[in-house]
């Protein structure tokens, strides 16, 4: 950032073509975007390597695990191991190093082969069967949370000290405080078991049996119907934390002079709260959106289990307990990529909404 860009155009103008090329290369090399991408790739590699190691540190390999299951059905240890070896597409004697190289190859070619415990499917197919659903429900949950949390947070800051503020702050703390799986379980228990108004039985799963996928209202409506509970669950926690954070940020911004001036200018309250207070207060909150997203995907395991919503959390959970290495790897890489991409987007958005970030860096 400190490269005196001012001198570049001049030298480019004087330069021979090859020098120009060199400058272009240098520009790319020193460019923010390029370095961000490099960093992201690095992060993804590191995360997947750590995952790889963690997975291999965990006791048991896929065959042992499968054997354990068979074992529980009455087979002896040896028998179970032998049967499992046939069922699972895994060579227990391969060195970890060799597997790692294999995995790296997969990482580069984006081909992770087939699932170990379900060899009829490629890992990609396997993951894609779950991923869209989780992304949909988490994404929708976060969108809701942002909309509700941000507006509630602002309203709280505006009415600081009022009964509204007190109750909403308590609600916000409650929502952030209590894990979303407990909250959604309470919703189900009260709505379904106690009151009997929630058609929970029909809401389980991702889609009703017999509904054909496609871009038609029946399918989309059904998908939304099934996703409502997961979306609410994901929205719960995130809403609370956005509320509290937004309130804190808004409270700060409200003390700024430009807000007073905006009031003096007789701007409409809505415009002040959106364009002046909201935009500035959002600055510290925006980075949290990406984080929430990542956190929710990570935390989808329990939610998806309670609500019987087969998403990536459920898949990851069973892949981990099956030690289905390639599936776990692929899932983690996809998660890592989405977190990294989300934080990239956040950075870009921040630059967009905070012009001051661009012109930093003249500091001694």
């Amino acid at each position, binding site marked *: 950032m400190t490269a005196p860009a001012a001198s570049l155009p001049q030298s480019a103008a004087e330069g021979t073509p090859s020098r120009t090329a060199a400058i272009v290369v240098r520009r790319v090399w020193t460019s923010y975007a390029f370095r961000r991408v490099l960093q992201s790739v690095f992060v993804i590699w590191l995360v997947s390597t750590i995952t790889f190691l963690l997975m291999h540190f965990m006791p048991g390999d896929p065959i042992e695990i499968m054997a354990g299951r068979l074992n529980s059905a009455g087979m002896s240890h040896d028998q179970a191991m032998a049967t499992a070896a046939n069922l699972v597409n895994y060579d227990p004697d391969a060195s970890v190093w060799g597997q790692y190289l294999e995995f790296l190859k997969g990482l580069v070619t984006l081909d992770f082969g087939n699932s170990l415990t379900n060899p009829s499917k490629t890992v990609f197919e396997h993951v894609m069967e779950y991923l869209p659903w989780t992304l949909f429900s988490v994404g929708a949950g976060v969108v809701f949370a942002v909309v509700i949390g941000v507006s509630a947070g602002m309203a709280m800051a505006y009415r600081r000290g009022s009964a509204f503020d007190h109750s909403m702050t308590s609600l916000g703390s409650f929502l952030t405080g209590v894990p979303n799986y407990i909250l959604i379980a309470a919703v189900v228990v009260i709505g379904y078991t106690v009151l009997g108004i929630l058609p929970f039985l029909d809401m389980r799963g991702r889609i009703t049996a017999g509904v054909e996928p496609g871009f038609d209202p029946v399918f989309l409506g059904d998908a939304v119907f099934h996703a409502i509970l997961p979306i609410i669950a994901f929205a719960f926690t995130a809403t609370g934390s956005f509320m509290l954070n937004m309130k804190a940020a808004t409270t700060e911004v409200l003390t700024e002079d430009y807000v007073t001036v905006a009031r003096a200018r*007789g701007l409409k309250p809505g415009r002040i709260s959106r*364009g002046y207070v909201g935009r500035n207060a959002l600055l510290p909150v925006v980075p949290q959106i990406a984080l929430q997203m990542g956190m929710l995907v990570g935390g989808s395991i329990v939610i998806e289990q309670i609500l019987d919503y087969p998403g990536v959390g459920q898949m990851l959970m069973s892949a981990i307990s099956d030690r289905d290495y390639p599936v776990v790897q692929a899932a983690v890489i996809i998660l890592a990529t989405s977190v990294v991409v989300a934080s990239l987007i956040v950075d870009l958005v921040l630059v967009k909404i905070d012009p001051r970030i661009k012109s930093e860096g003249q500091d001694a």
Partner: protein
Amino acid sequence: MSDPILSVRDLSIAYRTGRKESVTAVSGVDLDLYEGQSLALVGESGCGKTTLGLGLLRLLPNLGEITSGSLTYRLKDGTRADLLAMKKEPLRRFRWNEAAMVFQGAMNAFNPVIRIVDHFADTLRDHADGKKWTKAAVEARAGELLETVRLDPDRVLQSYPHELSGGMKQRALIALAIALDPQVLVLDEPTTALDLLTQRSIVQQLHELRSKFGFTMVFITHDLGLAAELADRVATMYAGRIIETGSARDIFYEPKHPYTAGLINAVMPVKGDRPALESIPGYPPSLKAMPDGCAFNPRCAFATDECKRDRVPLSLLTERPLGMDHSVACLHHDQVRLPRKESANV
């Protein structure tokens, strides 16, 4: 024309500083402003000028409140409005459209995340009254306004506030302030951060705007030169009160309050040799430890026991039309002379 455009009666403003404590920053201000007049508010730093200015637009921060008095305006449509009784939406429409303010802290007056042009767009659109402000129209109007304060629209419009120098921001704020042709313009040290040429051109611009639109101006300044140039009337404040008010000539040529006189005496001339200047002796009072009686008495050469006893009200010296009376709050005003008046002619 006998109807003042702005009329203030017995206005007092206090700041709460703790749960029970508060300080009175402005007390008992009476003021009538008539259309087209310009009033300079001068006085000690910290005497309550900004507070009064904010009070005139009901813009006090939460902990500041108008504790007594009344504040009425004659609106563009000729009706009179009691500002203190005004509801939210009318108050919003009133602000900037009827009365605008250029703030002392212009540096932070702009939203750091939006461009200058958007500030204009927001203001214009929120007071549009049905008029549709297209982007181009906003840019044209804003450009025009910026040119009146000698800013290069091409550069400034698309800039973010942090990309402008302090002076540029202040000028941009003035441009923004006149965007809706307000009737009353309150300027809090409007040219403090500006260089002389710009000051000059702004002053000129304000003159022109004033003769064109006939708006009324209250400007707060420490620059007595500027006051002399811009003001028809001058009011001197000390420790939250108006202690002398009169036409510009009254105040500059024949100040009758020892504080006003001291102030004029402390003006540094640009021309001629460097004189040894004296400030008013003693220290300015703090709001938290206000002397009894006339607040100026500890520093006053004429002070008598009487001055220490009771508050001294404004008394009328010379009556003039349209609120241009010369009044002073001093028991010993007849003794006050401008010491260097003669030599000031050099």
